[in-house]
């Protein structure tokens, strides 16, 4: 409350002894929060004559915005693509556990599945804010089934679909409802995809290109229709070729409409992408990079066999393969591991800390702290 109440009576929290990432540098600055929003302390001082109700000592830690994972298939034994009696419970369980990795919001991801699964699972989980109970759910990420057979990766071939009924109709038939869907991954070279991309974009759903053999012009056309994301760059798409860069070429394409950015997810677990490739992508288009885990059921579990959607996966160390093959199937790296690995790979100028997560806050409220 300590302010003249001209803007709000809500309590003000001040995080002291911390370093915050600002203007691409770590700076020693205090962070001020009220009602889940970051405050401008200068405005607070001169306009509201305000100061903090509560001070939290960060003991020199780095404060970073909570991590957002837009591609996570499950974890700790929970598989979002598998129907269970308590889909909501499964999502909530993972939501609570990933607080330990600093993730404060996420998109539960469903891999290519039979229509029945979408109809059953989608209505059960609603978009909601995070808090003490766990990370916030931003909406589902539907990875498939409208993807290329040639780049299916670990997705089951029998459930792949095309836009045979013209596009939007297929979409609604397969998914049932698009409420609570935040993102859809599709292959833009599929016939009739343009109308789908437009429809999804207009509804505010992020269209991501992936599991595709599209060439650069097909990818650019999709972007012009509204696509704005690339699913796990380099993986499940044609490799970069100097005469046709394919989807990878979007990073430096001059056909991206004015004011729009194409973002790209990267799994920085040290396995899915060689650090040199990671660096090339980052240097070509630093502002588009988004770290994702693409974590699967087995994340957080010991080595052995586990399920992902309709398939069986085998864990060997930090690798997850389709059982009996060497096809990578998602990752079991946690978000904070990816962040650390990315820092190593890219030699960003961050201060000494090993980027181990010490505590997680949602809306200024502590929701997880590492026990010492």
């Amino acid at each position, binding site marked *: 409350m300590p302010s003249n109440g001209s803007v709000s009576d809500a309590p003000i929290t001040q995080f002291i002894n911390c370093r915050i990432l600002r203007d691409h540098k770590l700076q020693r600055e205090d962070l001020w929060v009220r009602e889940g929003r970051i405050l*401008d*302390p*200068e*405005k607070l*001082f*001169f306009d509201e*004559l305000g*100061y903090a109700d509560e001070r939290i000592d960060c003991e020199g830690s780095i404060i970073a915005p909570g991590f957002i994972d837009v591609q996570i298939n499950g974890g700790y034994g929970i598989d979002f693509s598998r129907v269970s009696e308590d889909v909501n419970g499964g999502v909530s369980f993972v939501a609570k556990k990933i607080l330990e990795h600093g993730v404060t919001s996420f998109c539960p991801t469903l891999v290519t599945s039979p229509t029945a699964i979408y109809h059953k699972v989608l209505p059960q989980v609603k978009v909601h804010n995070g808090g003490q109970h766990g990370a916030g759910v931003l909406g589902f990420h539907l990875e498939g089934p409208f993807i290329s057979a040639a780049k299916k990766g670990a997705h089951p071939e029998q459930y792949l679909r095309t836009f045979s009924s013209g596009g939007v109709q297929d979409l609604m038939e397969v998914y049932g409802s698009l409420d609570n869907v935040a993102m859809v991954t599709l292959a833009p070279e599929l016939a009739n995809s343009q109308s789908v991309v437009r429809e999804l974009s207009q509804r505010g759903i992020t269209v991501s290109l992936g599991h595709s053999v599209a060439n650069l012009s097909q990818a650019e056309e999709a972007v012009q229709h509204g696509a704005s994301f690339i699913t796990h760059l380099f993986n499940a798409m044609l490799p970069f070729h100097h005469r046709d860069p394919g989807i990878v070429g979007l990073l430096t394409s001059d056909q991206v409409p004015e004011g729009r950015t194409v973002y790209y997810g990267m799994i920085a677990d040290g396995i899915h992408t060689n650090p040199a490739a990671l660096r090339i992508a980052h240097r070509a288009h630093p502002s588009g990079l988004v770290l994702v885990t693409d974590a699967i059921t087995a994340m957080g579990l010991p080595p052995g066999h586990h399920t992902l959607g309709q398939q069986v996966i085998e864990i060997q160390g930090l690798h997850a393969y389709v059982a009996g093959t060497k096809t990578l199937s998602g990752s079991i790296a946690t978000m904070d591991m990816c962040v650390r690995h990315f820092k190593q790979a890219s030699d960003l100028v961050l201060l000494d800390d090993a980027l181990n997560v010490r505590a997680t806050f949602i809306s200024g409220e502590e929701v997880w702290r590492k026990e010492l």
Partner: protein
Amino acid sequence: MKLIILNDYDQASEWAAKYIRNKILLFRPGPSRYFTLGLPTGSTPLGCYKKLIEYYKNGEISFQYVKTFNMDEYVGLPRDHPESYHSFMWNNFFKHIDIKAENAHILDGNAADLQAECEAFEEKITAAGGIELFVGGIGPDGHIAFNEPGSSLVSRTRVKTLAKDTIMANARFFDGDLSKVPTMALTVGVGTVMDAKEVMILITGAHKAFALYKAIEEGVNHMWTVSAFQQHRQTVFVCDEDATLELRVKTVKYFKGMMHVHNKLVESLPQEPKKN
């Protein structure tokens, strides 16, 4: 006048900060007895502010019962512009200490009626019981605050148009673009500062040496407005060696010879048990 000569900028900043600290502590400010402090901006006082912040963090001093009045502010610059004096004070001083926002007074360069704003500022100073210690700097042309050469030595808080030299000098803070530099400022007058019980002027660097010479070895003259303080009962000039380069050897030797006496003013005070 006391002329305090230290070896370098850091020592001068430290001496000044200790002096301010001791003044506040000896005054014993409290809920019904505020210490009123006049404050400058610019590169000269930065070291002093850093030291004061250090003393606050060490627990040696609190600004809870201190009221501050800044000397000046640009006209027409948004308050949250990085070059506004509001931003300067917030970033370099206020955000690091325990001063209450309602006790930190800075002229509002965006007030609808600038004249009224200036008059109100004078009234706030009077209401606070006048200023105990006014800290200021000096320009290369001998000005104090924005009281440029030719300013009346009995002037009050008012709107001033900035001299071309000042605008040029300030361009470096506005990406070298002269069109972006404010052309007017609100400033306390020479008379306003003269009303303070005590005045401390910080002067460091060779480029200020000539101004210091004009201020203390020549007569009182409105072309070198800092010279007005020759007629103030309690003035302290704190400077480094470089700032004395234009003074007579005799002047420098005289005041250096007094340092052992003057240094008593900045000795650590005996610790008092804290009441609250």
